[in-house]
């Protein structure tokens, strides 16, 4: 029997697009349960205050209002669960004190959402205002404590050489770096840079409807979630039920970007209310609500230092930073810097000291947002390398190439003790420079600068860690134990050949735009030879789909995809036995091609899958003792994460009079190992680039000094549209991983991880002739203009 580990590489039209484009996709808010009630929340207008009273009398008397709940009603359910419960856990409803604007104080359940909203407006809450701690550096000073019962606003610290309480304990790199700084021939550069807070904007806001069935003692929950299985576990644990007594369905999910990689108070509370009231209860957040009730992303400040020689050898890199957790710890809140820590030295074999303090503030919780820690880490590193290259007068691409891990060094144990699976970093950079005609670009830039134009080239390399991952991660807090699922990050795939020869594939992760239906059908088609059009992929239903935890961290193909591949091998093994029986051949001589199995050397004589299935489901016609049926399930637990990489380049021109930045070209070379569907890979890169460039150029969650969010609507929180972006020029190299049998690494976050610093490097390069060394994101025109004014002053 032959197997293939090749990339499939077919640009197949996406199976899901006709439904999604024509309006046949079914999202949570499209599902209506009989007898539904609607929930709405009273939310705090203050960032920090004691609640002195909540007067619900007028609201409770309104026609159509069914119930109003406050902390007193739900305290017994405990706080919202988090995987690493350090800091302050979030109460389901504010319990005596509010800690950020938008925190839920009371829940109204009514016959219609409009009535619920009217009742919300009629509830009177008396607050005793307290001084909020809004600025993260102010929080880090501990002058005012956010939570009275915490010793410090710094709730956790991560260090790259000594992480997770000594589980990884490597030598402290600081003495070596200090010695390098003292060398006569060394050069030291330092930068302080902000990585601003962002608001994830999924086109579908979060939506959940829950129904308690007292007969079966079971919840039915439909939620716009990236993690239906984890949600079932968390709800089960909260209500004292087994995870299988919570049936969760995540139907079509309209974008997640990490924001739906969380269990939220409203998901718990609609379950509670349904149990209390005996009717289904729904909550769908509004766009403005989403800005304060869903997690936010990033929010770091760090100072970096790089020391190296004048010929470009980097002798050390240091980062000391602060990361803003917001008021409460949710699912992976304090784990996010850990993901950055793992790639703190990027593609380079350089001594690295890296420490990030996690602080609480009176702002909404931060957690995973596309890239999650890794964009922050690569931003700081790749900005600093450019500053170092400029200081020593060397081309930034040369400095990078000089310090890369070389292709013969893999698996490469990086500065955090983890092994990078495979890589060929110089190859990606060389391809980028070749495609860009870098020498010509440099000439173009010089000619433009000679005319007084502000043209700049930005470069970044990146490596990411994704495809989570090894089950050992659950030992260090990066797991799902506290959602009642002491499981690993295993992936899952079930492949069933039906009696008519069609195939049903049931996978453990579900898409929120990634094209799982298409990609998995390609894998099964490639492995079994069943017609692509006769393969149907199901996902997102916890009673139907085997446990696969969820879609995040660019993991679906590398983990669940690999599981599906393994399930295909099991199906093939059985089909080969049946084919051998029918063809009166030896099992070893059966091969699989388009249409089905055949004897090696006679690919024209295939046995159709319907013929194989006919035997499989009528075992008396098959080999003696054969078990009936033709399906297999596989669980795949990888031995390592995967480590995609690449190199990006931006060419920009800055309008000297206004500070407006025009992106003239954007090129990306990405290596995600084997590519199953290059069109989908490109789509993922496009979306990732849009989000990275959006952060670089204009996105920012802005708070005033009282902790009020000034950018809570899309009028004030601009996100990029296609019209704001150039036509991306994409290339790729292919360096398969050996972590999974398909050699695939993951591509969901790569575009974001590589792009923000590419843009800022380009703008700083454009302004460098004026003496500008740093402009913090977002590069709104005013900020760029101000940098020009300051440099010229």
């Amino acid at each position: 029997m032959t197997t293939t580990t090749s990339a499939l590489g077919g640009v197949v039209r996406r199976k899901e697009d006709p439904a999604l484009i024509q309006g046949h996709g079914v999202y949570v808010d499209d599902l209506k349960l009989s007898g539904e009630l609607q929930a709405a929340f009273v939310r705090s207008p203050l960032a920090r205050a004691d609640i002195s009273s909540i007067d619900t009398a007028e609201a409770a008397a309104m026609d159509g209002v069914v119930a109003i709940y406050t902390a007193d009603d739900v305290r017994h359910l405990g706080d919202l669960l988090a995987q690493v419960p350090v800091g302050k856990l979030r109460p389901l409803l504010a319990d005596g004190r509010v800690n950020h604007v938008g925190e839920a104080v009371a829940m109204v359940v009514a016959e219609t959402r409009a009535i619920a909203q009217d009742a919300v407006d009629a509830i009177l809450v008396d607050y005793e205002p307290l001084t909020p701690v809004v600025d993260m550096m102010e929080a880090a000073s501990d002058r005012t404590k956010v939570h009275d019962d915490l010793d410090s606003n710094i709730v956790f610290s991560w260090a790259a050489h000594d992480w997770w309480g000594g589980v990884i304990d490597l030598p402290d790199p600081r003495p070596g770096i200090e010695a390098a700084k003292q060398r006569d021939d060394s050069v030291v550069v330092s930068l302080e840079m902000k990585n601003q807070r962002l608001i994830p904007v999924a086109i579908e806001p979060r939506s959940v409807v829950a129904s308690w069935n007292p007969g079966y003692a079971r919840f039915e929950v439909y939620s716009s979630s990236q993690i239906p299985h984890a949600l079932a576990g968390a709800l089960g644990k909260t209500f004292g039920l087994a995870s299988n007594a919570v049936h969760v369905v995540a139907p079509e999910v309209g974008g997640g970007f990490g924001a739906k990689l969380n269990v939220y108070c409203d998901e718990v509370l609609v379950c509670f209310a349904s149990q209390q009231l005996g009717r289904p209860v729904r909550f769908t957040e509004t766009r403005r609500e989403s800005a304060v009730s869903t997690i936010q992303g990033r929010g770091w400040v760090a100072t970096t230092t790089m020391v190296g020689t004048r010929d470009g050898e980097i002798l050390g890199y240091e980062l000391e930073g602060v990361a803003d957790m917001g008021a409460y710890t949710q699912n992976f809140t304090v784990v996010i810097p850990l993901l950055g820590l793992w790639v703190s030295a990027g593609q380079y074999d350089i001594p690295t000291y890296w420490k990030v303090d996690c602080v609480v503030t009176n702002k909404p919780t931060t957690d995973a947002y596309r890239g999650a820690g890794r964009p922050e880490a690569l931003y700081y590193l790749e900005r600093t390398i450019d500053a170092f290259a400029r200081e020593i007068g060397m081309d930034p691409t040369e400095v990078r190439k000089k310090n890369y891990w070389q292709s013969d060094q893999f698996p490469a144990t990086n500065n955090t003790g983890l092994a990078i699976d495979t890589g060929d970093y110089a190859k990606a950079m060389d391809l980028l420079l070749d495609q860009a005609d870098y020498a010509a670009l440099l000439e173009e830039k010089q000619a433009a600068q000679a005319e007084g134009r502000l043209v700049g080239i930005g470069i970044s390399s990146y490596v990411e860690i994704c495809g989570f991952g090894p089950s050992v991660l659950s030992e260090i807090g990066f797991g799902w134990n506290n959602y009642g699922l002491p499981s690993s990050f295993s992936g899952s795939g079930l492949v069933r050949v039906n009696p008519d020869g069609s195939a049903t594939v049931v996978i453990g992760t579900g898409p929120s735009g990634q094209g799982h239906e298409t990609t998995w059908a390609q894998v099964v088609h490639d492995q079994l030879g069943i017609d692509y059009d006769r393969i149907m992929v199901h996902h997102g239903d916890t009673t139907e789909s085997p446990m696969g935890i969820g879609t995040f961290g660019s993991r679906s193909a590398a983990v669940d995809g690999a599981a599906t591949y393994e399930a295909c091998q099991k199906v093939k093994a059985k089909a080969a036995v049946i084919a051998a029986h029918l063809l009166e051949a030896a099992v070893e001589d059966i091969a699989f091609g388009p249409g089905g199995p055949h004897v090696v050397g006679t690919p024209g004589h295939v046995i159709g899958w319907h013929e194989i299935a006919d035997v499989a489901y009528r075992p008396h016609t098959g080999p003696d003792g054969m078990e009936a049926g033709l399906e297999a399930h596989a669980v795949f637990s990888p031995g390592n994460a995967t480590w995609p990489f690449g190199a990006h380049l931006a060419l920009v021109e800055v309008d000297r009079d206004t500070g407006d930045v025009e992106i003239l070209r954007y090129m990306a070379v990405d290596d995600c190992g084997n590519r199953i569907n290059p069109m989908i890979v490109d789509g993922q890169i496009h979306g990732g680039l849009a989000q990275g460039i959006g952060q670089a150029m204009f996105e920012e969650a802005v708070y005033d000094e009282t902790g009020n969010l000034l950018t809570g609507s899309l009028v004030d929180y601009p996100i990029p549209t296609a019209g704001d972006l150039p036509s991306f020029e994409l290339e790729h190299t292919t360096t398969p991983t050996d972590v999974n049998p398909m050699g695939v690494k993951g591509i969901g976050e790569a575009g974001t991880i590589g792009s923000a610093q590419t843009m800022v490097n380009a703008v700083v390069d454009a302004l460098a002739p004026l003496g500008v060394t740093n402009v913090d994101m977002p590069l709104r025109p005013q900020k760029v203009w101000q940098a020009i004014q300051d440099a010229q002053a």
Partner: protein
Amino acid sequence: MYPREFDYVVPASLDEALDALASNPGAKVLAGGMSLLPLMKMRLFSPEMVVDIGRIPGLGDISDNGDHLAIGALVRHKQTASSDLVAAHAAALAEAASYTGDPQVRARGTTCGALAHADIAADQPAAALALGSTMVAASKAGRREIAAADFFVDTLTSALNPDEILVEVRVPKAGGGSVYDKLGRRGGHSDYAVAGAAAWVKKSNGTVEDARVALTGVGLKPTLAAGSMEAIIGSDGGADAVASAAERATEGVTVLEDLYGSEAYKAHLAKVYVGRALEQAIARA
């Protein structure tokens, strides 16, 4: 969407609509809904009644009335942006409409609605000002004409009375050349204006015979830049004259900072965009 409760009427004629407005002082006119509906959804504005004029015939045309163009109350941004008539006689307005919102908003929202909403960062009010437009307001009492310069009263406040509908905007076919340019919040022309300027210039015998310059995004309301107008009219329209006029862009204008620009930056942008708009308008004149 979860607005507060409101009455909704769909008049079949303009008279019915004016009746509804006259008898319900808390009523608000709905045309494209691109500004009104988000405010209602966020409960920032809760009218007692919404009078949907969307099905009244005869309000959706751009017509050539000899000495002026008439743009009806239901003419969408997209129509204004792509009309040959508007391009020929009021290029500034066509450009302003083409930079308004996104394709979805331009397909629904109306030029008259954008004017009546009087947003401080909207595009088309500046163009209407520079082109010397006239607003035609209808009520039960009849029609009245309001010069653009008198129409924009304050932030989100026009000279329309609660019982009036802006039934059309008249743009004079005055010759010369016009332009609208801006810096958007997302850079280039994208999104609301951080600051922008419209200019209309008529030349004869090598001098600027007449001109109007208007600003958006910088102050309390879309406004004429009187200093720039005074400086450019009668000049030769050359680079020095344009620079002098640009320098006076915010004369008499209260510049306000917002999330997208400090007072100094907005004042600076006003000068930049007045200069650019004048230079292009003069080239087109």
